[in-house]
């Protein structure tokens, strides 16, 4: 009697358990991935206005506009109609992805808001790129904007962060190469670092986290758009104390930063011979050593840059790059060019923006930790008066495969 009771109870329990189903199982084709995220200042699109009039609104302040780039689109109908190829070739570029925007004041609420507008929920596992516009960073600090992103479990910390000059959503809407998805395009462009030093090393969310936490100023790569084309151009400075954007550095400044940090993989220096004939130096390797000298409370930095490179292009008529004399002369002119760039950078950092973004603070921390501890809270202001000297040594070690 007792036995039967037990068995019945257990059977009931077992049946109960089957009613719950599989809890987190979502078939992959029922999901939408968003590969790019753009954060702009709040501007309400007309669709939303219309919906609001019909009562489709919730309590929010229109602080930010989030644009997500969703891939892939539904191909509607079975694959049999496509013949051999699956999906890709039979569609135009505009079908590969679509962008959708929402406005609100909390990033996660906005993203979840998409769930009441689309038939598939968004998952962020494959987010590749986050683009923030200068506009919104003028008023809201980076830490607040990125808070949800850093907290989320879906979004991988390997996602890249970029700044945009105009509207961030425009960077997600490029027609540069048909069939190309802008988010992937942007991510791929970062890889071009090995060809030029006008691109900063990538900043992932992990790096961003560390930078925000340390309350130091830093730079992020800038993206500009024009008529559907994008370009990496310069960098935006984020001030450490409040995480807001305070200004831009141009392409040459970014080059100078790479030179100082010594992490360029490639790049060029140029001088004009006879005022209009460019002669180009291509970097093969760069090494830079920053020494921090502390004399009591007086800090100064000495940067020693050594570089090995080649004569890449010569427009000067009558000059022979294979001759040592010409190389020596060119070397001096290249050094001038570099010094000019470095001075320009220092000027902007120390006088104009009063922010230290290159990494001098790190060097001070390593070499004079006690001093750093005292100074780190006001480092940006102190840096504005710190003298920085440069020592440049270039070496032209070859001239390519053509003699003249």
């Amino acid at each position, binding site marked *: 009697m007792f036995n039967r009771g037990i068995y019945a109870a*257990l059977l009931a329990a077992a049946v109960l358990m089957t009613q719950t189903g*599989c809890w987190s199982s979502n078939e992959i084709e029922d999901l939408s*991935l968003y590969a790019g995220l753009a954060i702009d200042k709040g501007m309400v699109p007309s669709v939303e206005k219309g919906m609001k009039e019909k009562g489709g609104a919730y309590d929010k302040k229109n602080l930010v506009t989030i644009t997500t780039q969703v891939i892939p689109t539904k*191909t509607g109908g079975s*694959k049999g109609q496509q013949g051999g190829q699956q*999906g890709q070739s039979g569609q135009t570029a505009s079908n590969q992805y679509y962008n959708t925007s929402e406005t609100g004041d909390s990033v996660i609420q906005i993203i979840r808001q998409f769930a009441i507008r689309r038939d598939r929920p968004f998952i962020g*596992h*494959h987010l590749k790129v986050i683009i923030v516009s200068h506009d919104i960073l003028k008023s809201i600090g980076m830490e607040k904007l990125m808070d949800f992103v850093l907290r989320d479990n879906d979004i991988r910390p390997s996602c890249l962060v970029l700044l945009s000059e105009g509207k961030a959503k425009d960077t997600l809407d490029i027609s540069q190469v048909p069939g190309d998805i802008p988010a992937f395009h942007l991510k791929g462009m970062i890889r071009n670092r090995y060809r030029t030093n006008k691109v900063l090393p990538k900043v992932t969310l992990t790096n961003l986290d560390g930078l925000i936490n340390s309350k130091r100023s830093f730079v992020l790569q800038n993206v500009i758009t024009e008529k559907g084309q994008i370009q990496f151009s310069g960098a935006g400075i984020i001030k450490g104390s409040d995480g807001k954007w305070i200004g831009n550095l141009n392409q040459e400044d970014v080059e100078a930063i790479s030179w100082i940090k010594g992490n360029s993989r490639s790049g060029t220096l140029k001088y004009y011979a006879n005022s209009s004939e460019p002669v180009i130096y291509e970097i093969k390797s760069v090494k830079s050593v920053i020494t921090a000298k502390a004399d009591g409370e007086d800090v100064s930095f000495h940067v020693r840059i050594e570089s090995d490179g080649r004569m890449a292009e010569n427009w000067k008529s009558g000059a022979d790059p294979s001759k040592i004399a010409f190389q020596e002369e060119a070397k001096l002119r290249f050094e001038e060019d570099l010094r000019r760039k470095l001075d320009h950078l220092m000027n902007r950092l120390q006088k104009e923006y009063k922010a230290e973004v290159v990494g001098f603070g790190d060097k001070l921390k390593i070499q004079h930790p006690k001093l750093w501890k005292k100074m780190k809270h006001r480092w940006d202001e102190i840096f504005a008066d710190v003298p920085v000297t440069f020592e440049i040594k270039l070496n032209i070690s070859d001239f390519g495969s053509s003699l003249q």
Partner: protein
Amino acid sequence: MVTHIFLQHVLGLIPMWSTILSYFPKGTVFFGAFMTLVIPLLLMRVIRLLRNFIRGSGRSLSGKGQAGFKEPQGGQGEGHAAVQHFYGNFDDDLNALKSAIGGNSDVHFREFVVAGANLRAVLVYVEGMQTEDQINKHVMKTLMKDSADEFKEALKATKPYVKNGLGAFIKKRILPVSVIFDVHNATELKQAILRGYTALMVEGMTEAILVDTPNNKTRTISEPISETLLRGPRLGFTEVLTENTAMLRQHGRNESLEIKKFEVGTRAKKSLALVYMRDIVNADLLAEVEKRLQTVDMDFIIESGYIEQLIEDDELSPFQQTQNTERPDRVLSAIMEGRIAILLDGTPFALIVPVTFSMLLQSPEDYYERWLPGTLLRCLRFFAAFLALTAPALYISFISFHPGLIPTELVISIINARQGVPFPSLIEVLILEISIEILREAGIRLPQPIGPAMGIVGGLIIGDAAVNAGIVSPFLVIVVSVTAISSFSIPMYSAGITLRILRFVGMIFASVLGILGTVLFLLLVCSHLVKLKSFGVPYLTPVTPFRFNGWKDLFLRAPMRLMYQRPDLMKPRDSTRKRRS
């Protein structure tokens, strides 16, 4: 004052109390705890019931089994029926015999007279099993003609024969036959004749003599179909026990190779042989095997599979605990390691005990090739086995639960490919897997001419058609075919079946809890393997218990010069296999 402080303390504790109480688990938690306890209890009870039920029939652990397992004397065995003795009188015995088995049309009685002694004699045989030549030349001719003189002399010399005299005389002096057995009672005589022996009864003999052994029809020795190798001897066992033991002796020439014969089966008897190396094998192991064989109590053992299932440690385990093979080279190498082989008359499949997990994935070819290809092929096989076990489960977990773990481009192609597929991934996988299992079963029984065509039909057309119809996604077809091919790479067929079964269990786990389900499934399988023993040897040796000696032969196959010791796990008496050069 004191009460004041006391009250303060007590009142101060109240908020603490409420926080403590808030942490006190709610009712649902207790229910969950109850479930945690009760379901394993229930499962254990069920398993114990099952085991007792299984063990209760077909196997008798008491000494009753003695009846079914006995060393033969002269090739016969006792039966359950009561033993009938000879009357002692030729006519009576003959008549009794005729009434017992004369009804069979293929039993013949050839009566004749022994020359010289004028004694009546009769040859009884079953048609088809006698060697005509032997009987005619060596028995009948000798008795009817050649030994006339001997008989006459014997007659003169001795009195009418004392008991046992005539039989011994005939055996020792008269019959030029090498294989002769005695039969002492009528029951044995009947059984022997029906078995195919030719019996000779002479007037005045107290016993009957069997003068001819059954002439079995056998097939030629050829490579076994189920275990082909590219390189290696193309020998396989046949259904005749004597031929098999002869083959072993021929190829494993060693005086310590010992073959012990037994009889199993109560109603229809079969000979069974234990083969081992007397000076290598562990005595306890031998005793254990014999003990288990003693408990085999069935009336007819057709195939060694019956024996395997009756002597194994754990019937409820999906893993086999004895190895079966048709190849004598496998048997011989196993014996050299200290294992024991069991051969059964009537089947070419020999059993090897004890077995460990690594043996299921090893192939003799590993040893015949050099160590580098041997090692790499073995690693490949292990990987294939792992794939065969977990690939569908991994597919299900990634597609349904963790799309974030797949590379992005792959995700996009999968999403595109899976548009329009109506089923969740579990159902999809089940559909394809079950179809492949059905195809496999059908393929075994297909007649030769249709075989390859069906392969094409099954593989290409069904797979392709399913994809085009939108039932499954092409990615899944790849996964399932890779799984199927991997499972074919396992050298032992029985191990392949195990993996197939487990694969389905893995799929179900994965469909409930994703990658966690797969991990739990793997842990469950590993826990089971870890507890499994085959005749006292832990199944997972030499992975664990960690015997470095055995690792030379597990994932790698170390160069021949290094393999100079027998595996520790067998605890052999003589552990040196080869002298180090």
